């Protein structure tokens, strides 16, 4: 299908595909098995300029377009959902800095994130603040020119790997979501450490740990934007990031589809009507999701506000597709699909997280429905 990508988009797609096949593909099994962070892969990706995709041109990036992010995330996700996550977390972590940080903060961090000198992560979730993301218990007390943070962030991707973190904490617990503020905190700050490492079903190349704050004193200038607007920034950051999750899901689906085709060809199944039906469904649904992601990305890149619903569409459908496609791939391949050597089982394990992270698909459905019905009496 022709999506009329412009020349730059086409060459980005070609480049990321080459890097994914040359660098990610030979490494994916190793990191899935060892569950270690793919430092070597991410630094090669950075050398090739892939982290510039998330950063605006004036700070040393390619422009920070959502379309580019989606193209890159799909291509990496096609090869490995875990490494795609480790990579894409840099978009989630840098997004708030790009859009809401001060000029000084931008100049300090963004050029170094673009080169890969620094990696970044985003700390929102807590044990009691999952879907109820505003229920943040971590506190940031003002103490003269400083803030003192206390609390634990849970399930944070790239925790301990990233050099710089955007962290959400309560500056005024009486105000609920409006009492949440965002801070930029560097690794190595006294009082900031990393807790439990999670042992996950999939995306095992992506490290997931707790961020632990114990009387962590940070200068007032580490506040990002305004006090009390942290949750608003978070939601707006998610609105821009969700199509990237969709794109990882799309990439996983594409990978599972290609694996299915390869297997069906080798096992002479192309004339089996059941297999034909599945291949046709997979191909049609993948193109539908791709079209949705691209349309959403273009809408966001055109500027303006009010793309929250579309952004949820672009996460919901492709992530469900990723799980469905990987399941079907296993079914067609039968017992072979269960063996690690055939990789679709990994694709399914990786796919499952796309229905969960950055807002479960139930939350996406709720948001979409409320958005649609709020104007209707």
């Amino acid at each position, binding site marked *: 299908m022709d999506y009329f990508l412009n020349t730059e988009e086409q060459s980005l797609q070609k480049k990321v595909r080459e890097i994914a096949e040359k660098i990610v593909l030979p490494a994916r099994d190793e990191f899935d098995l060892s569950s270690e962070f793919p430092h070597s892969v991410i630094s090669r990706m950075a050398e090739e300029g892939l982290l510039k995709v998330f950063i605006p041109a004036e700070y040393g990036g390619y422009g920070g377009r959502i379309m580019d992010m989606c193209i890159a995330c799909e291509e990496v996700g096609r090869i490995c959902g875990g490494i795609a996550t480790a990579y894409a977390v840099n978009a989630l972590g840098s997004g708030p800095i790009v859009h809401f940080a001060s000029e000084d903060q931008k100049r300090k961090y963004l050029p170094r994130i673009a080169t890969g000198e620094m990696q970044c992560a985003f700390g929102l979730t807590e044990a009691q603040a999952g*879907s109820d993301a505003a229920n943040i218990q971590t506190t940031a007390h003002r103490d003269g020119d400083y803030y003192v943070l206390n609390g634990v962030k849970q399930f944070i991707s790239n925790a301990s790997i990233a050099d710089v973190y955007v962290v959400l904490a309560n500056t005024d617990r009486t105000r609920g979501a409006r009492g949440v503020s965002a801070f930029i905190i560097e690794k190595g700050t006294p009082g900031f450490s990393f807790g439990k490492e999670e*042992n*996950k079903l999939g995306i095992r190349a992506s490290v997931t740990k707790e961020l632990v704050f114990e009387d962590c004193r940070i200068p007032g200038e580490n506040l990002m934007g305004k006090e009390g607007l942290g949750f608003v920034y978070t939601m707006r950051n998610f609105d821009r990031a969700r199509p990237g999750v969709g794109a990882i899901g799309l990439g996983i689906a594409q990978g599972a589809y290609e694996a299915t085709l390869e297997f069906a060809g080798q096992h002479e199944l192309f004339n089996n009507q059941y297999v034909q039906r599945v291949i046709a469904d997979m191909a049609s649904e993948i193109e539908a999701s791709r079209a949705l992601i691209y349309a959403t990305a273009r809408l966001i890149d055109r500027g303006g506000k009010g793309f929250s619903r579309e952004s949820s569409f672009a996460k919901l459908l492709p992530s469900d597709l990723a799980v469905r496609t990987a*399941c079907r791939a296993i*079914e067609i391949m*039968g017992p*072979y699909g*269960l*063996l690690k050597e055939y990789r679709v089982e990994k694709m399914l394990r990786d796919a499952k997280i796309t229905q969960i992270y950055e807002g479960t698909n139930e939350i996406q459905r709720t948001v979409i429905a409320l958005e649609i019905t709020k104007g209707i009496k």
Partner: protein
Amino acid sequence: MILSKECILLQNEIRKLSQQALLEKADELNKAGIMPVEGLGKLAEMGILGANAPEEFDGAALDVTGAAVAIEEISRVCASTALIAAVHNAGFIRPILKFGSGEQKQKYLSDAATGKIIGGYALISANEMKLQRTGEKFVVNGKNQFLLNGEADGPFMMYAPDRGTLSAFVIDADEKGVHRRRANVMGMNAAGIGTVVFENCSLSRNNIVGEEEQGRRILDEIDALAKIYFAAIALGLMQAAYDAALKYAGERVQFNEPIINFGMVREKIADIATCLEASRNLIYNAAQIADGQGNYRRAASIAKYYAGRSAVEITTQAIQIYGGYGYMKDYPVERYFRDAQVINVLDARPDVEKELIVKEILGA
């Protein structure tokens, strides 16, 4: 579906046994990929390893419904253990009992029924071997990537392509030219699934089960039973996922309420309960037809197809109810999810199962 009094007694006993002998180590053994040797010993004491074998071979002589109920209960705690028992009973004991020579029965059945040996089955859909006849000998080369119960290092059943059809063989644990290794499977990690490689493995007529070129008939005979037991494994997984998800939904508080109060969670619980009950009824129905000596092939295929697919769907939804926690190995649902994928394609893929259903419907 109403179970007999004896069956309910058995169910209670196996439930208790599973809780006592399997639960504590299930998580650890699955993570480490080790077969539950102690647990299998306890199951052997209860007669579950010779569930359908007659008393003359030290079996428990249970009917199909009884064995299915037992397997379901074991699977609720550890699907891998249930898979071992199901394969051992339906894939190994059954063909030898029904088609084996007197000598083969003497050699294997009593030891199998008492759990001294755990019999295996090289999954027909993973056959990649060739058989050559040289004089009185059958020489096998190639491999099968799915030797169920392979790591138990016992004898196993194998169906090799022979003159355009299949011949059934029983292969001894120490047969020359047979090399086993562990298979890297996404789930059922305590079930000891292996890969077997045949290297000029020379077999004689004594290895043949039934007549030469009778493998297809034997498979047809054992398949329907295996399907009921595999469906019962799926059922146990669904029950476990349902129990876990329902409990979690009642305890997990978000937006100041237990999440069971939210419509999208309630809908999932209702969907899970519906699939669970429908599967249970299909399975018990097939088992009861089998116990009444009826033709239960269609019923067994329908039960297996539906239960396998449902297990995949239900365990996916169970993780979703747990949210991020469901993705972590500290919680049980990700194991159920992986195990469900395995059982969904054993012993036949859903599309093959559907084809079997249609064949039964059309009487072809």
